[in-house]
């Protein structure tokens, strides 16, 4: 990926060593409404995720997976508790500072892709650079976007609009958009949920590659086989973390290390 020019403009701080906690949640709670109408997203979540980990968040529908993912990605704010990501108390950041933090530090992949419909694949990826790394030149943005699209196998679709692409292709653009700024953290909310098996695996491989390169990847999934490939599996139930299991060896894929 030719991002030389990009990296000089972006100048992100050097990542902490692998294993150091990138995400630390303490008593994290998200509730909508109040009284009888109160709806609990997550309640009292304590969680620690290290740098470069590939973490799967699993659980039944309504268990709070997506809410936890949204809180970690900074696209929702907790009602109470603290959330430190990459050294920043993101629960205390203002709207604009949080937006800046997201642009620089997080890549988000959505189940519904959420590509901007009037921009081509390249432009969608370029937009993430423009927002996250505002100093990058137009040429650098364009080159970086094309390079990352090539990485996800979409060179031939670079000029296409989202409406001209399949769901799998759109999701790969979504992953390219999340990868292009080389964020410390990628949060993917059921990235393969709307895709067929082959496209799903393709997208998942891109995320595991990113984790291998040192990016922390938190992905929410219902797919047991994908979760099994994660370094850590966070199981949720009724808004709380039921267990966190770390994979220790190929013979014994995961070991429960904590029960909330």
């Amino acid at each position, binding site marked *: 990926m030719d991002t030389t020019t990009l990296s000089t403009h972006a100048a992100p701080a050097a990542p902490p060593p692998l294993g150091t906690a990138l995400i630390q949640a303490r008593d994290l709670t998200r509730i909508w409404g109040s009284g009888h109408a109160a709806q609990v997203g997550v309640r009292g979540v304590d969680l620690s995720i290290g740098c470069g980990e590939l973490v799967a968040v699993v659980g039944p529908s309504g268990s709070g997976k997506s809410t936890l993912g949204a809180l970690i990605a900074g696209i929702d704010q907790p009602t109470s508790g603290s959330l430190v990501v990459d050294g920043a108390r993101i629960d205390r950041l203002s709207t604009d500072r949080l937006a800046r933090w997201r642009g620089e530090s997080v890549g988000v992949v959505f189940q519904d892709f959420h590509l901007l419909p*009037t921009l081509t694949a390249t432009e969608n990826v370029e937009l993430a650079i423009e927002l996250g790394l505002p100093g990058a030149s137009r040429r650098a943005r364009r080159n970086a976007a094309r390079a990352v699209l090539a990485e996800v196998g979409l060179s031939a679709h670079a000029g296409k*609009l989202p409406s001209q692409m399949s769901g799998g292709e759109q999701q790969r653009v979504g992953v390219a958009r999340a990868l292009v700024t080389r964020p410390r953290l990628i949060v993917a909310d059921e990235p393969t949920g709307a895709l067929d098996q082959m496209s799903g695996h393709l997208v998942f491989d891109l995320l595991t590659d990113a984790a291998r390169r040192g990016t922390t990847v938190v992905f929410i999934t219902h797919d047991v086989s994908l979760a099994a490939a994660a370094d850590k599996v966070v199981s949720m139930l009724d808004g709380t973390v039921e267990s966190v299991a770390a994979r220790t060896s190929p013979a014994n894929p995961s070991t429960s290390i904590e029960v909330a």
Partner: protein
Amino acid sequence: MRSFLRQFRRAPGRILASIAALALAVGAIGVLAIPSIASSSLSDAVERDGLGDLVVETTSIDPRQLAAIERLDNVEAADTTASVASELDGERIRLIGLSPDRTMDLINVTEGREPAAPDEVVAEPGLAAIGDRVDVVGDRFEVVGLGSTLWWGDDLVVYADIDAVLPLTGDRGTDRLTIRAVDDSQAALETIADDVRALLADGGDTFTGFPTYFPDGTTPIDADIRQVSQLIGLLGIFAGLVALVLLASTTNTLITERSREVAVMRALGGRQRRLRRRLRRIAIGIAVAALVIGLPLGIAISNLIARMVLHDFVGITPGFAVDLPVLAGSAAAVVVGARLVSARAARRVTTVPLATALRDRDANPFGATRLQRWSTRVGLGGLVTRMAGRTSLRRPARTAAVVAQIAAAVGAAFLVPTLATSVNDFNSSAHAVWQWESVAIAGDPGLPLNADDDAVTTGSADGSSDEYGIWAWGQVDDWDMDVYGLHIESRMIEPAISEGAWIDGDHDTVVSSGFAERNDIEVGDPLQVILAAGPTEFVVTGLSDDSSRAVYVDRDHLAVVMGAPGMANVVWSTGPEPATSSTTPSTITTLDEIVAEEAANNNAIVMIFGAIGIVVSGVAALAVLSSMTVSLFERRHEFAAMQAIGARKRRLRRLLFIEMLPLAAGGILGGLAIGGLGARGIIASFESSNAIDIGVTDATGAVPFIVLGTAAILGLLVTVVVRSAARRPIAMSLRGAA
């Protein structure tokens, strides 16, 4: 009803905004009811006050002549009145003497009572209080009541018994005749006028003014109402069109939003016909809710403006009235309009291929048209600029509608000041030819002033000069004209002769150039001018560029034609007051006061158009706000997605500003063109219906304010939308979009 309420619960703010905007538009359609409400109020006043069918100023009519008039064919009743000029608290007033057993010109006494003794009077409300005393030529009258009658409504007059007034008129006697006819058709009334004229001529008497006819129950300002009605009709139609555009925009949005829901129902086996019916009900629900608010609003608006019109033109305060046909018409138009526009949108939504509808959030994917695909190959500007441009292309119909709505609002906002500046300029130019500063107008009818032929110009101690003249009404080709009788060497006028020369003989006349042009009158043409006493012939020697409808003739010749050689009815002065006025009962006024009074009358018309313009402008502005709010609301998931990848508020604001810029520019340019053309159309209509030159002065001074105002409103809208988008958790917006 249930589906409407369900839709309402989903988006109460937007639906309320749409209902409010549509209700205001429906209310604006209410201006169509103004003419009928005004006519109905006037007809009530005519009936109540016993307005005659024929009214004419005459020389004195004695009881024998009056009895003869009452015996004429088709005459049901006849009355004479007498009047004399007077003064009350420094104001020139007229004392009107009315017969106690009259059946016409009945006074509607609102306070106190009718006169019961010769020294008692009733005054127009506001002119005096009960118990005040009025001095008239040495006699004192006591005000015992306050009241009014339609003919003199809002004039400065007091009413007394005719027997008390007649001795005060000297030799003049009665000066006005009122007749009620059995057959009140125009032809029958004209026949009566001819018969009366002949009967009076036998006794050496004559008409001193033109007869006024009220055929078939018409009222004094029917012609004005007709003229204003045409223009009000145009504005009403405009308001109706805005209402339909608004309805179409709201309906389309609400129905399009449900594309996916409809697609799911279709996938589950829902029949198209049933789904369309459900969608149509939403639009009809909004229309009905808007009618519930809009119809009473329309009634209020029409009554308010009708009240302004009647108060300014005839001095009566109308009662509350409702125009049922306009009410029913606007209700039917809105409901049928809602049915038609929703049917189209519903058909479109239910015929989108099922797979597309299920896949796309709003069944309107970008890239479906060649133009949209071509736009992705144009790499002009930054990403934000490209997004802005393509978003406008995504919904071209809505983009065009927003531009049209901005244009409508700007058009109305530019039209009103342009009318005002044009009328102001016209007010100034209409009297530019006159050199006099003040005028004494004889308080009594006819030509009561004895003009001194030997002293064309009477010098005064203060260096000013006075001059006798005649200021009368005449008719040319059925047009009412100002007829000015001036000395050939008059110093009171500096005519702006655009062609030919000033008058130089008895039969010469100079005619206003605008009138001449519209009636194919040229220098050298013979011109018949009909005066109260009959027709007389002149030859056109010149055309005067004076924004009036006037003929200028020799004063002495005019006095002869009017049956009063050597007499006049005005004294003009280059000073603040004509020296001769102290010897004659007269009203002294200055040119500035006349200009101001005419300006006030013209401004009243501008005010009425201003009020209507503000309503139309407000409706169009609300339509813009509604369309833009709906459009921006639809794109909330786009904004949420941008925020999720790092866009800050200022970035979103920038995107929206760039999007709005071409729409606002197009709307403002189009609006200025519409406003300018509209003002020209309205003024051309006035010029044509009055046969005068008015001219258009574009209110260029208002343009910066209009541009800034439009920018400020759109800027405020963008700021509010972005702030509201930023306040909502991104995750929630994205979940909602999904």
